[in-house]
């Protein structure tokens, strides 16, 4: 019997997810014994997944340009099982924050306005490079996805679990609970009077970070990561995206923030004050999932409209 084969396609991404595969560390030789790794650009000099097809295709990275749309369709056609691998692939990831701007603005900024750019003729590359899409997309906007393994990057333990499940023909599913489920910090009383940025106050190493006024996205983020950030006393940034029962991570976080604020109306801060204490709402609450959020379309359309309005 032939070994199951694996192909990893890399789209708009930093390649951290591929490194996470290598981070399987001592388990890696075992995995490589069990599967036939056919294609992974960080290790092999191929341009596309094998024509004869593979059992499993991992896609890391979101979709930013037209070439990536093609590559994505190719790996979908050539894989029996397709896995959205990592936050970018699943929800657009950090590159998805570019959706706060139009394509033209991005090109203008990168090729002309940046201080370090010397481009006296104002040329924007358009001949040998694939054209950009209007916005960043999660891969599920184009193809059917069989499994999602979120994370920035996905934790090696879950990668191993996923691979094991696939080898044994089992379903892979993250428990539909949020990060708080595995968080070791103590939850006491949620009565926050003001929110603070990480690094501006001494952290109580025992207590729930949200209760201490830090913007921890643990309550609104799919768990399974063993709460690795809060365990290290860094607030969860939400790289696992929303759970399956939730439509929008940011909307849920705003709801949660409303609830952790102290109830006593004589001591509670004004809502405007709270908003002021959270300097970058979109970047904080949708750091990884803007491109897949409910606000995506509305936001994008409004950004475009607003910009046009300003010009007119």
């Amino acid at each position, binding site marked *: 019997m032939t070994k199951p084969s694996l192909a990893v396609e890399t789209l708009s991404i930093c390649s951290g997810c591929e490194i996470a595969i290598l981070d399987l560390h001592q388990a890696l030789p075992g995995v490589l014994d069990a599967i036939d790794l056919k294609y992974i650009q960080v290790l092999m000099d191929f341009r596309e997944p094998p024509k004869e097809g593979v059992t499993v295709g991992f896609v890391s990275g979101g979709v930013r340009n037209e070439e990536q749309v093609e590559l994505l369709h190719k790996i979908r056609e050539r894989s029996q099982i397709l896995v959205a691998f990592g936050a970018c692939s699943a929800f657009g990831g950090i590159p998805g924050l570019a959706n706060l701007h139009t394509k033209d603005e991005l090109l203008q900024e990168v090729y002309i306005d940046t201080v370090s750019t010397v481009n006296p003729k104002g040329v924007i590359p358009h001949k040998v490079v694939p054209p950009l899409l209007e916005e960043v997309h999660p891969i599920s906007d184009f193809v059917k996805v069989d499994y999602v393994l979120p994370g920035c990057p996905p934790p090696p333990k879950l990668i191993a679990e996923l691979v094991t499940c696939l080898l044994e023909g089992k379903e892979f599913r993250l428990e*539909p*609970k*949020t*990060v*708080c*489920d595995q968080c070791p910090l103590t*939850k006491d*009383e*949620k*009565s926050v009077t003001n929110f603070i940025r990480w690094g501006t106050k001494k952290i109580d190493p025992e207590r*729930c970070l949200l209760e201490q006024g830090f913007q921890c996205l*643990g*309550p*609104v983020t799919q*768990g399974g990561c063993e709460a690795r950030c809060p365990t290290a006393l860094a607030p969860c940034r939400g790289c696992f995206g929303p*759970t399956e*029962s*939730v439509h929008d991570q940011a909307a*849920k*976080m705003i*709801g*949660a923030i*409303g*609830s*952790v604020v102290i*109830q*006593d*109306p*004589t*001591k509670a801060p004004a809502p405007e004050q709270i908003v002021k204490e959270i300097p970058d709402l979109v970047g904080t609450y949708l750091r990884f999932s803007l491109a897949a959020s409910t606000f995506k379309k509305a936001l994008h359309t409004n950004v475009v409209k607003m910009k046009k309005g300003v010009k007119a």
Partner: protein
Amino acid sequence: MSTEEPKIGVFICHCGSNIAGVIDIPQLVEYTATLPNVVVAEDYRYMCSDPGQDLIRERAREKGLNRVVVAACSPTLHEPTFRRVLESMGLNPFFFDMSNIREHCSWVHTHEEEAALEKAKDLVRMAVARAAELEPLVQKEVDVKASVLVVGAGIAGIQAALDIADAGYKVYLVEKEPSIGGHMAQLDKTFPTLDCSSCILTPKMSLIGQHPNIELLTYSEVREVDGFVGNFKVKVERKPRFVIEDKCTACADCLEVCPVNVPDEFNTGLGWRKAIYIPFAQAVPNAYIIDTEHCLGMTPIACGKCKDSCEAEAIDYEMKPEILELDIGAIIVTTGFKLFNAMEQLEYGYGKYPDVMTNLEMERMLSAAGPTDGKIIRPSSMKKPKDIAYIQCVGSRNERYNNYCSRVCCMAALKQARQIREKYPDINVTIFYIDMRAFGKGYEEFYESTSREYGVTFVRGRVAEVRGSFDSDRIVIRAEDTLLGQPVEAEADIVVLSCGIQAAENQGDLARVLGIQLSADGFFLEAHPKLRPVETNTDGIFIAGAAQGPKDIPDSVAQAKGAAASALTMVTAGRVKVQPYAAVVNEELCAGCGICEASCPYGAVKVVDNVAQVTEAQCKGCGTCAAACPNEAIAPQHFTMDQIIAQLDALFQEAR
């Protein structure tokens, strides 16, 4: 989920001309008949009347209805009425929904008939969509413990406790201070009858001390309230007095020997007391207490003089705080108020000029049992004043402090002015006011006679500044006389600030412990300002007196009697119905983050072992937790996500 096909009857009420005067009822009925699952769509003049109710019953029988929607007024008014109709037909009363086309349509869109009709169509469509998703629910009944906890023993708490105890039920009366009596004990006379305050209060106080049904817990505080209506588990902390109440004979031998003098709180700091003391002569319980903050060490090595002098052997330096656990059926909260801190309003110079005092300080000075034996003197010189000025609305009716009117200060100032003029006809009294508010029974008459017969001067205008005179030791008041339309400047020897009433210190903490709410001004929030004035939104907890809002003595007593009657109704019945709205937790989704616990206004949700748990009887089904839950892991039973989504789908589908 019930499997039978929903057969919905929609009944549209005219409410006389309240609804029919604006909304085209025939059109609404015609539209309603086209909605999915609607078998009956009819209208009637008054749906809530007996013939209206009969109409529902008749149609239900004819057409085999299993869901009913009434489009009429607010469910707060008539939901119970129509639920009873369903019950009488043998239908589950929760197969009912109401859409409010009066308050939400005809009353607010009186001049937009078209728009009101469209909105009514939307609301009815939504109610029908939800009705199809309704689930049958069962109401539970729970036993009610035959005991009442009264928190706070001012006049309101005293009255409530006496009423309940007289009805034959056990009362636990908890008071934070060493003696009961509250603010009323500090007053000399009460308006408008000029009764001696302590003469009418102390008989009630001593009744409390002796009543067989009342267990008095002074110098104690409520620490924890668990459970729900009829079955509260309350933890009360008894702080140590260091004097055994039962043994102390109040002989005052210890006073003779105690070497420490401390400003006396009861006399607003105008007199002195010892470190071992009794708050005032008529205190109940009539026992001393040691103020550990000022006592010289509480050990026989450092001092211990009081213990040596005590023949009754009532002094115990080893006394420890004690936690009592009580089983309670109903709770009445009468924790009173705090006087506005005059220091906050800097321009009136309180704390800077000794002759600027608060109304309560003047009250103590006027009291025959007070620090000056009822004589009025200037604190700076200990001499008799010639002119006294009152400044009204200190801390009240002021955007910088409290927006509301404190309700008692006008009458209190009038009463004090009259007392001063009675005692010393040669002292001039001037009252600077914004409006004189004399609204109670006999108050206007009191105001009239005070101004006419007692020669008190009134100046209408808020005082801008109080400062020391440059030429003498008197005080200068600058104000604008709004009747004359010009600035005025007056001199006085004593300035009395009519400080307003504020929510008590830590009222928010107590609200949290009890699971009840505060209104924006910091006082406890009643369930309905007109129709449920002594109930809170938490079943079985009642409020009365100034803890609910500024109030004078007659109003406090009236409210206390109301709260006592409400608590008695519940305790006497012995059983109480609990609405089956409670939220349910999906343990597979719950990560125990505690967001729901923080959001619950009733303290009904608690995270235990990393999973949220709902105390059914405490839950009101408000849905706050469902909205807050980051993982949709909790939802109330009578407003499920399916029902809400069905309503929203119906709302956004294009109106046909």
